[in-house]
């Protein structure tokens, strides 16, 4: 709720993360407010004007210590709840890799993003791949895998509306997934400092309806750009 009010949620798991955020807000907010209430209440109640002499409490007395011990119970319970939900979300987003309907390659470098789309045959590393710079085109409601690489330094493939973030590390290929659920044009930001141009790496993600996306693919595939007869070839390849 809180996150969605600030930024649209455009991926299948964005709402899970939003819910987790709300849950944590609630679970830490309540103890925080209680602690604040006690804190200020004690300051006003035991102001020097109102008190003759301070009490002598070592703190080890059971009648006082029990309050500290009791306070641990809710904290531990809340911790466990938060861990369960957090790990659950984490598992869904980062560890678990659902079957992909399409795969894109994301290559970061100083200071631009290169996106390789699979093209009409929906397979990467074929002749009809569509390579773009600083704009990623994906279809709504399609489950994508991304293969993230970096050419030079650390970068971070961050799509705030997806609530997705993953560092790109030179020498590694990191795979993850997302499923766009909201059509529109949104930011892709680099979220790991990558040198002077770190603030100048704004890419855009274009989430299109499947038909729009198919049209974009058809229009931009190397074959259609090269030859007018491309659509036939595309059909033939499928």
């Amino acid at each position, binding site marked *: 709720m809180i996150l969605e009010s600030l930024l649209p949620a455009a991926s299948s798991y964005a709402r899970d993360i939003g819910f987790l955020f709300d849950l944590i807000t609630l679970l830490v907010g309540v103890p925080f407010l209680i602690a604040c209430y006690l804190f200020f209440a004690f300051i006003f109640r035991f102001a020097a004007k109102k008190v003759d002499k301070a009490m002598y409490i070592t703190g080890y007395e059971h009648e006082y210590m029990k309050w500290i011990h009791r306070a641990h119970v809710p904290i531990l319970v809340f911790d466990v709840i938060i861990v369960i939900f957090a790990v659950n979300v984490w598992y869904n987003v980062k*560890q678990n890799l659902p079957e992909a309907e399409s795969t894109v390659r994301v290559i970061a470098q100083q200071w631009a993003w290169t996106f390789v789309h699979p093209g009409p045959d929906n397979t990467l590393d074929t002749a009809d791949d569509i390579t773009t710079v600083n704009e990623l085109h994906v279809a709504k409601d399609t489950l994508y895998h991304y293969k993230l690489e970096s050419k030079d330094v650390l970068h971070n493939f961050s799509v705030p509306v997806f609530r997705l973030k993953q560092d790109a590390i030179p020498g590694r290929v990191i*795979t993850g997934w997302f499923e766009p659920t909201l059509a529109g044009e949104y930011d892709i930001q680099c979220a790991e400092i990558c040198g002077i141009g770190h603030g100048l790496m704004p890419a855009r993600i274009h989430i299109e309806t499947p038909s729009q996306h198919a049209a974009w693919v058809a229009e931009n595939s190397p074959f259609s750009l090269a030859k007018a007869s491309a659509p036939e070839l595309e059909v033939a390849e499928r």
Partner: protein
Amino acid sequence: MSAHEAHGDEFYVKTWAILLVLLLISVLGPLLGHPVLTLITAFGIAVVKAYLVAVRFMHINLTPRFVTYAVATTLVFMLLFFAGTAPDVMKNHGTNWVKPAWIQAEAAYAAEVASGAAGHHGAGGHGEAPHGGEAAPAHH
């Protein structure tokens, strides 16, 4: 420091002699060519030697107990560091990530071993500097 005055100089010379014997074993161990044995003679004996030096030369057993605990704690923390770091640094792949260049280099090396050229690396290091660099992963 009074507890160890019972020891004369011979005690230390004797300890030194034991250490030298252990050293000899650890140098000769690999000559048997058995990897598990090498591991034992190299690192098992290193631990024994370190223990001997710590106890008989450094008198760690005669210092208050907390010193031993402090030293042990540092070792535990180092194990922790290793445990937390190894899954990333020691592996060439993991959950949803791979190091392609590394895997390629390994495959190339395995092929080389299979073709009987494994000895080349050790000797190659002696000969030409560029080869030493080339053998590193990711250049292939």
